[in-house]
């Protein structure tokens, strides 16, 4: 029965994959053109939406959902404890990815200043769990988010607990669209960690991220995979049964499979250099790299 169900899902995924492959590359551009029309809605931030598009409403819902978690963001035993422990694998992933691309100053490799001198943009930083970690490795991090309470929480956390990072980390309440317009080709790396699954218009979003990236720069994405096992474990069990993740955090229809993501990145002029799978061992709150990408995956791609 399970095998059958899995088989069905694989079938669905493969079908999607093939439709995607068959699509002309410019399709994404067309789509982003169409969505440029509603770009103002991405600027939502604190002001009410001007255009009443569905996508914008959805985005707003996501922001509000995460805004409500602001006060619990930094509780290591709280609802976001999984994000805290995820740092133990995602920061080394980003660090080693950047070291392997020779962006880093050789004399800092193997020291706590390994990312010294690198400009990193983190999109959707939330309360800054990943941001502070990168700042602690001496990177200059600009971190943006649309949730006002989240940015407030992030700023107050750095003031209270990590004042030494204030010169390294810069939080902004801003959309990627407006930020990338002002910072074209500025960053050595753009990080989209546990964010893309909350975005409606992925082509548009990734395009904006890439605009802010230097040619040859790295884009790091970590997210859930669109597989049956993830649907059962990652959404139904994690949100509703075991309450590992706050209810309503993830939406199946917004999750993008690793194949679709690769095709998308490829069509936008990126080369995927690393694709890793990872899983959550919730009973000990730790994450593990795996060959299998069925649960979650991390991508490191280079802007050509």
């Amino acid at each position, binding site marked *: 029965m399970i095998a059958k169900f899995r088989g069905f899902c694989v079938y669905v995924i493969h079908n999607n994959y093939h439709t995607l492959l068959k699509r002309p590359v410019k399709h994404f551009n067309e789509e982003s053109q169409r969505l440029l029309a509603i770009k103002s809605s991405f600027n939502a931030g604190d002001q009410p939406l001007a255009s009443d598009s569905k996508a914008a409403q959805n985005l707003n819902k996501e922001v509000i959902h995460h*805004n*409500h978690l*602001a*006060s619990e963001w930094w509780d*290591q035993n709280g609802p976001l404890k999984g994000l*805290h*422990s995820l*740092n*133990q694998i995602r*920061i*080394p992933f980003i*660090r080693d990815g950047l070291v392997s691309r020779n962006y880093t100053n050789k004399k800092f490799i*193997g*020291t*706590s200043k*390994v990312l010294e001198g690198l400009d990193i943009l983190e999109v959707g930083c939330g309360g800054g769990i990943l941001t*502070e*970690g*990168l*700042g*602690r*490795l001496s990177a200059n991090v600009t971190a943006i988010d649309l949730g006002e*309470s989240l940015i*407030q*929480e992030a700023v*107050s956390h750095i*003031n*209270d*607990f*990590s*004042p*030494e990072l204030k010169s390294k980390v810069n939080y902004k309440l801003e959309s990627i669209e407006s930020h990338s317009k002002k910072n074209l080709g500025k960053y050595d790396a753009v990080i989209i960690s546990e964010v893309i699954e909350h975005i409606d218009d992925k082509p548009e979003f990734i395009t904006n991220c890439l605009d802010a990236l230097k040619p040859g720069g790295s884009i790091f994405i970590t997210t859930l995979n669109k597989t049956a096992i993830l649907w059962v474990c990652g959404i139904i069990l994690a949100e509703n049964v075991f309450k590992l993740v706050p209810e309503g955090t993830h939406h199946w229809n917004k999750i993008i499979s690793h194949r679709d993501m690769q095709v998308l990145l490829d069509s936008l002029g990126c080369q995927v250099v690393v694709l890793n799978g990872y899983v959550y061992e919730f009973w000990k*709150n*730790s994450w593990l790299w795996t060959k299998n990408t069925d649960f979650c995956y991390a991508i490191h791609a280079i802007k050509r």
Partner: protein
Amino acid sequence: MFSVLRFSTIKNLRNVRTFASSTSNHFDIIIAGGGLVGTSLACALSKNKILSERNVLLLEGAPPFKGFECGEYGNRVSALNNNTVDFFKNIGVWEKISAARFKPVKQMQVWDASSNASITFNHDNFSENVAYIIENDLVLDSVYKELESAKNVQIKNLAKIEDVDLEGLATKSVKLKGGEEFTCDLLIGADGVNSLVRKQMKVDTYTHNYNEMGLVATLELDGNACDNSVAWQRFLPTGPVALLPLNENKSSLVWSTTPEMAKKLQSLPADEFVDELNKAFVKEYPKNEFVSNALRVLDTIMNSDSQSSRQYPPKVRSVVERSRACFPLGFMHSSSYVRSGVALVGDAAHRIHPLAGQGVNLGFGDVKCLVEVLADGVYGGATLSDKLVLLKYEKDRLVHNVPLMLGIHGIQSLYSSSFSPLVLLRSLGLQITQNAPPLKNLFMKKAMG
């Protein structure tokens, strides 16, 4: 609105750190206790490329260390295993120790006074040493000398800790007698078996009093002790007595026995004490006929000869004046080694019977592991106080320490009895292990690294 309200309450509850870091009394790491484990931890922190820029404060209650001279041997010695020696090599301390003096042990012989069961531990053809006997003062001296060049470590002597406050979210604070206060991101308790840091962590501890005292002394051996590279240990009904070689004609004594007997031995005139000691190694204790028969049968089955291959330890000629000292023995294990911003190492976390000489090796193992885990965490962008990182240290060490501690505790309990079935069990166990190389190698690997 709701979230904003909650947000402000949380903020008020915070122990804001700006105050602490604005004063010069803030350190990244404070180590409470400058014994063998605490000082070597400071040294290891200064040698690690990732951690060497963190400010470390080492608090020690005693006056500055008086130094070490190669005169008469000290009475407190440790049997360091190969893992510990490798660790010392890595932190640059071994060079100093080996330039002074140390005694490699090529073989250990352990036997039971209530039966003739015995076991010897050595590497094939004595190719490697099983342990190194080194005076504690020499280790301390070498570590302190190495610390002189450590830019990131400050040592504060005569620093008696009055209280530690572990409740602060951002920083932990230490208050000294005399009123001085220091704060830190990470407080490490290396303050021994009565650790104040551990008490303030409010963790459960399991303790057991063996009702035994350890008597130590420095001994001179009778003329022909060959190269004196065997460590001897005999289990008497009152507790184990051990001779650890210091050089060709000197050995160090560790004699675990009842408190009354220990006190008596300590105050005996030197010549009577030496007689008692020599007797302890050769005296025949009543043997259980059944156990002796069982051992003979086992010998036949395993085609070995436990009775004739027995070597005896060298005869003790005299005891060095004023080298006799007593200390109480006990078992203690802390249920947890860490909490956010706090970690325990060495005797502060665990204490065992000296019968296998493992106590201090466990402590150095803690230090090595903690430094590796912290460096890994910091290189991964974590703070020093990150509980997720510290838990890795705890997990690694529990997996290593608990089986070893239970094993040693088990051996101690097993050998403190004269109850025949237990004597039979331990004698057969020892004899089987002696004749089953894989089993023996497993023990050696566990205890000797």
